[in-house]
């Protein structure tokens, strides 16, 4: 049933796709974590305008289908004379999309630290930034790890939408291999296995981190 010759015969294309998906995932992961944290802080900062900016970004981005955001980066930006290839446009789209979910996860984590902690720190003489850095964020991080891990797993899987804008990722090459060999079942089973090679270690890493943080707390 499972035809290994599909894997051996198309090893180069599988590897190119796998390497690109890995690169896309790492870049988007770092990017979305930075942007997400920024917007989470904006949403809870003691300033009404910043709150509105943060909320607008999150609500706008997370309520649009990912594929539409990716299309926008790919086919929309050329109107502004910014022509990106599928790989770059796709990675950017994925970063922006995931950052909205990460912002929400981090915001929820911060808010779940009891208000009393802030009050105690502030009355002990710490500034707002010191309170955040030493008291709130370390506690919030522990709470945030499981939902954050979820978002990162979703990110890896969501990177497959790059296949439709010639993003040269695993799914793109999977489609091409399928259309050459017509061994649909085997082709996509191997594609799935390559995704698992990325996602399973990620899953374990998140679990391990969660346990370590729980102990150190």
């Amino acid at each position, binding site marked *: 049933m499972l035809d290994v010759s599909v894997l051996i015969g198309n090893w180069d294309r599988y590897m190119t796709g796998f390497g690109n998906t890995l690169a896309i995932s790492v870049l988007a992961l770092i990017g979305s974590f930075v942007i997400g944290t920024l917007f989470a802080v904006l949403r809870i900062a003691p300033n009404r305008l910043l709150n509105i900016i943060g909320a607008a970004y999150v609500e706008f981005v997370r309520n649009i289908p990912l594929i539409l955001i990716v299309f926008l980066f790919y086919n929309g930006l*050329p109107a502004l004379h910014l022509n990106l290839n599928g790989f770059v446009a796709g990675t950017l789209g994925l970063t922006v999309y995931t950052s909205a979910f990460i912002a929400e996860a981090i915001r929820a984590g911060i808010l779940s630290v009891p208000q009393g902690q802030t009050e105690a720190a502030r009355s002990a003489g710490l500034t707002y930034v010191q309170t955040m850095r030493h008291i709130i964020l370390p506690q919030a991080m522990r709470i945030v790890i499981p939902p954050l891990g979820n978002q990162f797993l979703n990110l890896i899987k969501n990177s497959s939408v790059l296949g439709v804008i010639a993003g040269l990722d695993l799914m793109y090459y999977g489609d*091409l291999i399928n259309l050459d060999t017509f061994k649909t079942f085997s082709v996509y089973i191997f594609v799935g296995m390559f995704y698992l090679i990325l996602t399973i270690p990620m899953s374990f890493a998140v679990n391990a981190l969660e346990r370590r943080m729980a102990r150190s707390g």
Partner: protein
Amino acid sequence: MRKMYRNKWFLSGMILMLAAFAVAGCGGREAGNENQSGTGKAASTVETAKERGKLVIGVKFDTNLFGLKDPASGEVKGFDIDIAKAIATKLLGDESKLELKEVTSKTRIPMLQNGDIDAIIATMTVTEERKQQVDFTEVYFNAGQSLLVKKGSPIRSIDDVKKGVKVVAVKGSTSTKNVREKAPDAEVLEFENYQDAFTALKSGKGEVLTTDNSILFGMMKQDPNFEMVGGNFTDEPYGIAVRKGDTEFASFINNLLKEMKENGEYDKLYEQWMGEKPSK
């Protein structure tokens, strides 16, 4: 006990009904066969259509420029349709005596052989395999793979598609394989469908789009900033198919095609649909 009794009646009723259907089905088919062969050996459509006062032609309903059903009016329009109308007018003197039936690439040959339709005008490429099953008329449209570029592009033919040129194509189509063979150094970007591929060409993801000219004509109509260059680099001649042995009808159509080419009607139709004159 009574329940079982009733069930038995029900069952025998069902069997009777099934049997009746089977008999009716057989009868129908036999009648159909008689009809087909009844008017003499290999009755020509030229006569049968006149007797019926109706000509039935299988066309595509989903192919831009050739046979496309307008969802608003329900009317089917295209190059193939106009050729079919010309045949009906010539044969029966009135294009309203033409009946169009939708066919797909899969259904068209069986439908012709069954007698559901009298001819196929449905972007059908003449091939040796198909010649075993149907008779073809002369070629009425020279299809083949060609190149679409932005007007003023330095790419003028398949020979200009060299290393460093990005070619936009559709995933899994034969045109992708053809262009890889003819221009092995070019990078090919493949998209899900024609619309996505054309959008990518428009936004400059590649310099050239390649697929069948019949589809490129449609894209050119959509956006006149693009032009087809270099002619066809593969050959896929479209022919009209008639039932095997229906030579009288085939030569009738051939005469009409010749006539239309001579009096300029063919060129007029071609230009109306493809946006340019046929290349000689």
